[in-house]
């Protein structure tokens, strides 16, 4: 009972509140269509009739939760995963671009951070560009990168991964610069008394010390990578992906399809971030650095 009170109840309360708001919103936003329809048919719309209609429209302004759940069920469990109507199929395409871009971004981020920490020139010159890169809206950059790369014959996974990388390297740079600088004066002096080289100090002290910072950055980077992959799927109709699915949905006013793709993307992000969290707990515990 106390476990329920402490852990389940707060979450449940929030979920219920969201559901109530969502259903109320669906009724409100979809009522105009229901009233117009009733008017054209010359019938008086009762309250129960209004509810029933607003929660079961084919192209509602705001689909009701159960419609989205039903759509997700229909397009995941009930579809062959190789079908172009399967969200698993589209999710996999987005996931592979996300993960590839995430690893590229993490690698680039760590390399830049190592350079910035070791070279004053890089600290002064690269950091402003890193920050500037993030002030440009990704929606402006993504189509250019996709189109340009397509024009030179690079298509499919890589251009999308590049966009993911573009978004995910930033938190890694910022976190790792802080992490690589986290050893205190005493620890650095100690390395100096042993006449350790910069490379040895990096491998034996700076990198292990930065691990907690790395994991925090990786969580943000993973979520950003997913956003990048989805945005990268929007500009031109490509061979599937959650972004493409949303785009097609918006062409044809298939709001339920858009929402189900959105929810699947959100769940995907949550699972990926949770995986990093598990890895973080195991690693930091083994390194004796758990809080």
């Amino acid at each position, binding site marked *: 009972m106390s476990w329920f009170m402490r852990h389940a109840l707060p979450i449940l309360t929030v979920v219920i509140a969201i559901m109530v708001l969502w259903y109320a919103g669906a009724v409100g936003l979809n009522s105009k269509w229901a009233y117009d329809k009733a008017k054209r048919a010359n019938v008086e719309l009762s309250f129960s009739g209004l509810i029933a209609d607003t929660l079961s429209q084919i192209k509602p302004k705001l689909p009701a939760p159960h419609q989205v759940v039903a759509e997700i069920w229909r397009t995941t469990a009930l579809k062959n995963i190789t079908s172009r109507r399967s969200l698993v199929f589209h999710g996999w395409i987005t996931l592979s671009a996300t993960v590839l871009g995430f690893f590229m971004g993490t690698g680039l981020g760590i390399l830049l951070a190592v350079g910035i920490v070791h070279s004053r020139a890089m600290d002064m010159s690269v950091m402003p560009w890193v920050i500037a890169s993030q002030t440009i809206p990704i929606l402006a950059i993504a189509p250019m990168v996709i189109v340009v790369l397509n024009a030179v014959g690079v298509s499919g996974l890589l251009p999308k991964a590049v966009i993911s990388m573009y978004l995910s390297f930033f938190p890694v740079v910022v976190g790792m610069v802080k992490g690589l600088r986290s050893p205190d004066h*005493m*620890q650095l*002096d*100690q390395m*100096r008394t*042993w*006449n350790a080289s910069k490379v040895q100090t990096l491998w034996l002290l700076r990198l292990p010390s930065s691990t907690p910072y790395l994991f925090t950055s990786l969580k943000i980077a993973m979520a950003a990578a997913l956003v990048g992959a989805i945005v990268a799927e929007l500009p031109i109709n490509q061979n599937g992906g959650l972004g493409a699915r949303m785009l097609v949905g918006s062409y044809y006013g298939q709001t339920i399809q858009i929402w189900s793709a959105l929810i699947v993307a959100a769940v995907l992000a949550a699972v990926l971030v949770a995986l990093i969290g598990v890895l973080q707990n195991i690693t930091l515990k083994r*390194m*004796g650095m758990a809080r």
Partner: protein
Amino acid sequence: MNDIVVNAKNLSLTFETNDGPVHALSGIDLTIKKGEFVSFIGPSGCGKTTFLRVLADLEQPTSGEVTINGVSPEQARKSRAYGFVFQAAGLYPWRTIGGNIRLPLEIMGYSKADQTQRVNRVLELVDLAGFEKKFPWQLSGGMQQRASIARALAFDADILLMDEPFGALDEIVRDHLNEQLLVLWAKTQKTIGFVTHSIPEAVYLSTKIVVMSPRPGRIIDIIDSPLPAERPLDIRDTPEFLAVAHRVREGLRAGNAYDD
């Protein structure tokens, strides 16, 4: 070849700060012979730690000369002539005790077999045999500091520089570690430079006590201890011990250490 390990002549160090220059060390003349146990004592700001750090090539003197084993501190550091023990044990939490002691050995490129043999030897020396596989958090503060001393002993430096190594520990643990340190010193015949702000600790451990005072950091008195090499803990109740402690206190008073 003479047996002078440290030779400082008219050594000064001035830090430039926003509030003007701070004379951390001023006109330091000191020689330390091989096998001596030298304590530096004085109030904070007297430059005792700074002097140790100059010897370790962690600070650069502004003027004057200093040699370690006849060469500059930088050359001495590069030839790994000394082991340095800091106030905090500074063990890496992600390495076992054995792994921490192995750390400088890895950096210095000792062979695997040699590393293992040395780790076992120094663990024995600081009475931590059997703790090789433990992690730092599994050890008490005193044991961690012993591990850090073991780490400084693991490579063949014949000088041991210790910067208030027991300053963060309680007095009971401290007494015990002082006793052990003397045993260790007798066994290894190292030359030890030891910074402390405890008068009993300085008198109990040292063959030579350097009393310092602040603003500018300078040497007030150098006392060659008349105490015998064999020192049980209760030597601290003998008149000879109290006489030395008294002289240290007089030196500190002369240097205005008790003013604020």
